């Protein structure tokens, strides 16, 4: 134990600092750290909120991967979704940032490109539903019919085959913003001297500049963008629900988060839903770690 004098010393040295940190620490522990541990613990139980949790071993996980076909569909949809929207959003936002950085009227372009990502997913799904409307009033059906490509309107949000692609298009449209903003700022921060030095060392064109100077100096921003797009693309939910409904036809728009929501807050099977959350946690966290290794710049 501390002697009183020791505590006084400690307080004089660190007391103020910890007082500043305390509000954050309490809330962060209560709503982030403890919940992660809590979710992992709950995933090994049966828990319906009314009765006490009952230890269940790995039952939930076994059920999830061997017996729950809907979960496997959700997993497949989320993976397809993530592996398409993640990379497309990531590279598109980098390329656009790179091009816009060299343009005049940078801010106007930046706003046009960034605006979709600060709008509400729900609100924008409403707008996109006008475009992908299932009757001939929909813009896209109308256009395709006029061009003679189709004769009957396509049931965009009802046909299991087109649901996921529609969700992907809307999400890509909405997801490019944050990464884009970080990349643009990173690009503006690279000092001109680096490019001058590169020119002396024999770099001839914009493309070589990009590979040898721009990308390496932007590692921290690239890493942030990657983590951001992983978390967002695996967490797809509100856009999917408002476009395809829940449950969607043939579960074509069902995602991991939708499954979690279904079991946790409709059926109140918290243990099982926590297992779903843990699977989501492991996927995003391990992908995040891989990118940390790939794009680390700690030693530089």
């Amino acid at each position, binding site marked *: 134990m501390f002697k009183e004098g020791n505590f006084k010393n400690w307080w004089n040295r660190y007391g103020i600092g910890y007082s500043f940190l305390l509000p954050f620490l309490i809330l962060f522990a209560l709503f982030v750290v403890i919940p*992660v541990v809590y979710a992992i613990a709950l995933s090994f139980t049966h828990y319906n909120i009314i009765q006490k949790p009952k230890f269940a071993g790995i039952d939930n996980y076994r059920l999830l991967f061997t017996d729950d076909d809907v979960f496997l569909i959700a997993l497949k949809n989320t993976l397809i979704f993530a592996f398409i929207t993640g990379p497309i959003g990531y590279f598109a936002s980098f390329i656009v940032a790179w091009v816009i950085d060299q343009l005049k009227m940078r801010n106007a372009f930046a*706003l046009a490109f960034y605006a979709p990502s600060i709008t509400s997913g*729900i609100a924008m799904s409403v*707008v996109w539903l006008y475009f992908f409307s299932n009757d001939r009033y929909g*813009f896209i059906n109308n256009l395709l019919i006029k061009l003679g490509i189709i004769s009957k309107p396509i049931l965009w949000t009802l046909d299991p085959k087109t649901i996921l692609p529609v969700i992907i298009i809307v999400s890509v449209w909405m997801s490019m913003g944050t990464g884009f903003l970080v990349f643009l*700022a990173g690009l503006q921060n690279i000092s001109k001297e680096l490019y001058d030095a590169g020119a002396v060392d024999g770099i001839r064109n914009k493309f070589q500049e990009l590979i040898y100077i721009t990308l390496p100096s932007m590692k921290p921003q690239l890493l942030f963008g990657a983590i951001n797009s992983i978390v967002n693309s695996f967490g797809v939910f509100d856009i999917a629900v408002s476009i395809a409904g829940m449950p969607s036809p043939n579960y074509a728009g069902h995602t991991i988060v939708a499954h979690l929501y279904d079991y946790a807050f409709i059926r109140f099977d918290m243990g099982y839903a926590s297992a779903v*959350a843990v699977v*989501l946690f492991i996927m995003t966290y391990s992908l995040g770690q891989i990118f940390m290794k790939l794009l680390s710049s700690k030693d530089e």
Partner: protein
Amino acid sequence: MGLLVLFTSLPLIYMISTAFKPYDELFLYPPRFFVRKPTLQNFVDLFTALDSTVIPFSRYVFNSLFTTVVTVFATVIVCSMGAFAIAKYKLPYANTIFNIVIAALMFSPHVTQIPNYLIVSKLHLLNTYWALIIPKIAVAYNLFLMKQFIEQIPDTYLDAARIDGAGEFKIFWQIIMPMCKPAWSTLIVFSFVSNWNDYFSPLIFINRQELKTLPLVLQSLAGGPGQVARSGALAAATFVVTIPTIIVFLIMQSRVMKTMAYSGIKG
């Protein structure tokens, strides 16, 4: 490039144009993109017609505005203070804490939603504004961004102030915060956007109709997914939900650009 800008801005332009369309233009066939005779009828409908359904639309606007503004204010203060402590006092375990914060950037908030629900219900906060505010104050990203920024401020400023007899809180409030204006302006934008648009938290924490926020109401106004009913009021509501975030961003844009350069992760 032009095509891309078209892809990003067309739906927004259409949204704005539709909100001002009179009835006969809403149901026109073939559909027309731009409004011919703009009218405010849709907005009038939205704010008055819904009155008959017990709760006026303005109540939902208030709910969203109130919870968002309080959350933004609280998170900026709490996360800036925490970041200041980690960046400028050599606290034991500060590194460990910061590493946990970085780790928390790497998973989606949905992971913690079930325990959060249980905790919020234990604290008897379900169906209150606090359920939408308190869990969203300590945000890993916000602390992370502020810390990157505060670290750049030389210690000599702080030492000089201390010699002049300034207390630690005064240093934080009158030196650190003014120098970090770009950083917390950015936080205001991000936090405003994410709380204003948040759909998941009110969905699970709020059942009472009079406490619901705009995203929930907008969705039920859409008549459930897949169909477009009450087109006029819906178009106006979409407009009302979307415009505030764009205005907030426009006001802060130049500061945001300055800050984002600090948001890289060294790893």
